[in-house]
C-alpha cells in the first residue's frame, strides 16, 4: 500500500529535520519527533534526512530498521502493546496474548479491520509487580484480564 504524505505533513517533517540539524546524535530525537507527529517514519523522507544529516540513505534505513520502536508504515488510531516478558509469562500472559489475538482477529504487527487498534508485542513495561501488563497508547494497565482488555479496546474503538 503506497502511502502518500500530504503537503502539510511533508512541510512539518522538513521543519523537524531543520530543528535537529547540528544536534549531537540528532538522528534519534529526529526520528522520534517524526513518528510522534506522523505516526510512523515514512521511507520517502530518507533522502531528505540523509542530506540534512550527512548520512547515506542506507545508513538512515539501517538506523530505522534496527529499532523496534520505529515503524515505516501507518498504524491504527491506537496501539495496544502486550508484554511478553518473563514476569508476565509467570502470570499467564501467553493465554492473554492468544485471547487478544483471537478477539481482535489479528496477529502482532497487524491492525484491526476498522483501523482502530494495532497490536504489538513488547518486552517489559516495568510494571512487573502487577503482571500481566498491557499498554494502550501511553497508558499502562496492570493485573489485566481479558475482560479488562476488551473494555479498553471497546473504549478506544468507540472513542
Amino acid at each position: 500500500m503506497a502511502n502518500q504524505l500530504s503537503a502539510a505533513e511533508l512541510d512539518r517533517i522538513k521543519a523537524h529535520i531543520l530543528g535537529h540539524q547540528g544536534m549531537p546524535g540528532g538522528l534519534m530525537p529526529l526520528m522520534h519527533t517524526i513518528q510522534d507527529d506522523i505516526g510512523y517514519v515514512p521511507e520517502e523522507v530518507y533522502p531528505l534526512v540523509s542530506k540534512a544529516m550527512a548520512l547515506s540513505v542506507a545508513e538512515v534505513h539501517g538506523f530505522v530498521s534496527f529499532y523496534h520502536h520505529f515503524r515505516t508504515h501507518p498504524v491504527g488510531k491506537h496501539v495496544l502493546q502486550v508484554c511478553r516478558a518473563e514476569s508476565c509469562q509467570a502470570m499467564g500472559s501467553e493465554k492473554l496474548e492468544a485471547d487478544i489475538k483471537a478477539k481482535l482477529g489479528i496477529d502482532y504487527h497487524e491492525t484491526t479491520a476498522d483501523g482502530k487498534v494495532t497490536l504489538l508485542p513488547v518486552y517489559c513495561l516495568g510494571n512487573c509487580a502487577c503482571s500481566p501488563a498491557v499498554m494502550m497508547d501511553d497508558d499502562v494497565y496492570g493485573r489485566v484480564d481479558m475482560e479488562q482488555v476488551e473494555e479498553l479496546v471497546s473504549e478506544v474503538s468507540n472513542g
Partner: protein
Amino acid sequence: MVKVYIPRDSTALSVGADRTAKAIQAEAEKRGADITIIRNGSRGLFWIEPMIEVETPKGRVAYAPVKPKDVASLFDADFINGGDHALSLGLTEEIPYLKNQQRLTFVRAGITDPVSLEDYIAYDGYKGLKNALAMTQEDIVKAVTDSGLRGRGGAAFPTGIKWNTVLGAKGAQKYIVCNADEGDSGTFSDRMVMEDDPYVLIEGMTIAGLAVGATQGYIYLRSEYPHALHILNEAIDKANAAGYLGDDVCGSGKSFQMEVRRAAGAYVCGEETSLLESLEGKRGLVRFKPPLPAIEGLFGKPTVVNNVISLATIPIILDKGAQYYADYGMGRSRGTLPIQLAGNIKCGGLVELAFGITLRELLYDYGGGSASGRPIRAVQVGGPLGAYLPESQFDTPIDYESFQKLWAVLGHGGIVVFDDTVNMAKMARYAFEFCSIESCGKCTPCRIGATRGVEVMDKITSGTEHTKNIQVLRDLSDTMLNGSLCALGGMTPYPVISALNHFGEDFGLNKGLNEKEGAA
C-alpha cells in the same frame, strides 16, 4: 486543609490511581471536605496499589487498595482524620513490609511530590551536592570508591574506579551518561527513581559531573517509560530554573547541563557501548572493548556510563559519608540493593535492603509466597540473562559473590517468581527467542546461536535425537558464553543451562523421553 496522598507512579496508575483520585476529589467537593490531593510517588507496595495516605497529627495513615467504590465509605469513616476503615493499614511507617526495609537510595520515594523541588530539599535533597561543591574532585571520587558502591545495572563494577579513570582521562569535553534503558523483565527500580524521586538522579549526575569534570549529562531513557520522560523533563526544567543545573551550578561557577534522550525499544542498547552508539544517532551495535568508554566513550570522549540506581545512590553517600553507606552489606557487596519482587508473587514491590538477606526471606517474609498460592518452583534473578534458581538455592544471600558461586547473577536486582505450573524447557526456549529478537547482529555466536538455540530446544521438546541434542544445547551454550561480544549472547546460556541443570525433567531427562530418540 488535610493532605491526601495518591500516587502518580506508573504502576499505581496502571491499577487505577487516577480514577481513585478523581473519585476522592469529587466526593470531597460533594461533602465540602477541606482536602488537598498531593500526587506523590509510590512507596513501592505495589500489590496493594492504589495506596492512599492521609496526613494526621500522628503521622501518615494508609488505606489500600482504594477503588472508586470505596471512596464514599472512607469519607463515612472519617478517613481524612485517620478514621478506622476495613482498608486501613494504620501508620504507613509501621507497615512491616516498609518498616523493615533499609531505604537509602529510596529514602524519599512515595513520601514526596516527585516534581516538587521544595519537597526534595525539605527531605534532605541536595545536601550531597552542597558537600561535593566544597570538596576536591579527587575527594569526591574517593568517597564513592570508599563507599564500596558497585554498578547497580548488573555488572557490579566498582563505581569509584570507573569515575577515577574518567577523572584521569584527558579531554576537553567529558560526559556523564545515565543508562535508563531498564529492559530486564522483573525490574522497575530505575523507573521508580525517575518517576518517584527524579531529583535524586539529577543530583547524582551533577555530582558525577563535578567529580570527573564533565559538563554534559544524558539520560538514555527507554521509550516504554513515557511517564518517566515527562516527570524527568519537568524536574530538569525546575532544577535549571532554581540554579541546580546550568552554567553556574549553585553559584559555584561550574557548569552542568542535562538532557533526556529517548531510546527506541532495543534491549541490547542497555549494554553500555551499544547505548553510546545509539546516543550518537547510530544503530545500537556493540563496540569492541578496549577502548573503555571511560577513555573513549560518547563521541569518542571520556564518559562515565552508570545505571540509574548507581547515580541515584551518590547523593546519600556524599551527604552521610562513604562509611555510612559501606556499613551496610556483606563481604564485597556494600550498601543496599533495591530488590524488585515480580512475577507470580503475592506481595510484589520494591524492597530495599542491605546485602545479605536471603532469597527465601525475600520470597516468603516479604513476598508472602506465590500469587497463585501454588508452590514456588523457580525464580529468575537478574533479568532475562539471569539464571533460574530452584528451591534448594533459596537460602543464598543476596550478595554478588554468593550468586557468582552458584553460576548465577544478581544483575539489576529483579526477582521473577514462577509457580509449579511453569515449564522450564519453554523458558529456556524463550531465552533463545528473546536473544534472537534482540541481538544486534554484530557477533556470530549471538546472531546465529540464538536462532539455532530455538531450533535445538524444539528438537529436545519434541524428543528428536534427544541425547544428541542435549549435547548440542550444551555445546552451543558454551560457544555463546565464551564467544559473544557482549552479555546478551554471552549470558543467554545462564537461563538456559541453569534450567537444564536444575529442571532436567522438563527437558525430558529421566522421564523416558530418551526412548523416542531417533524417531524423527
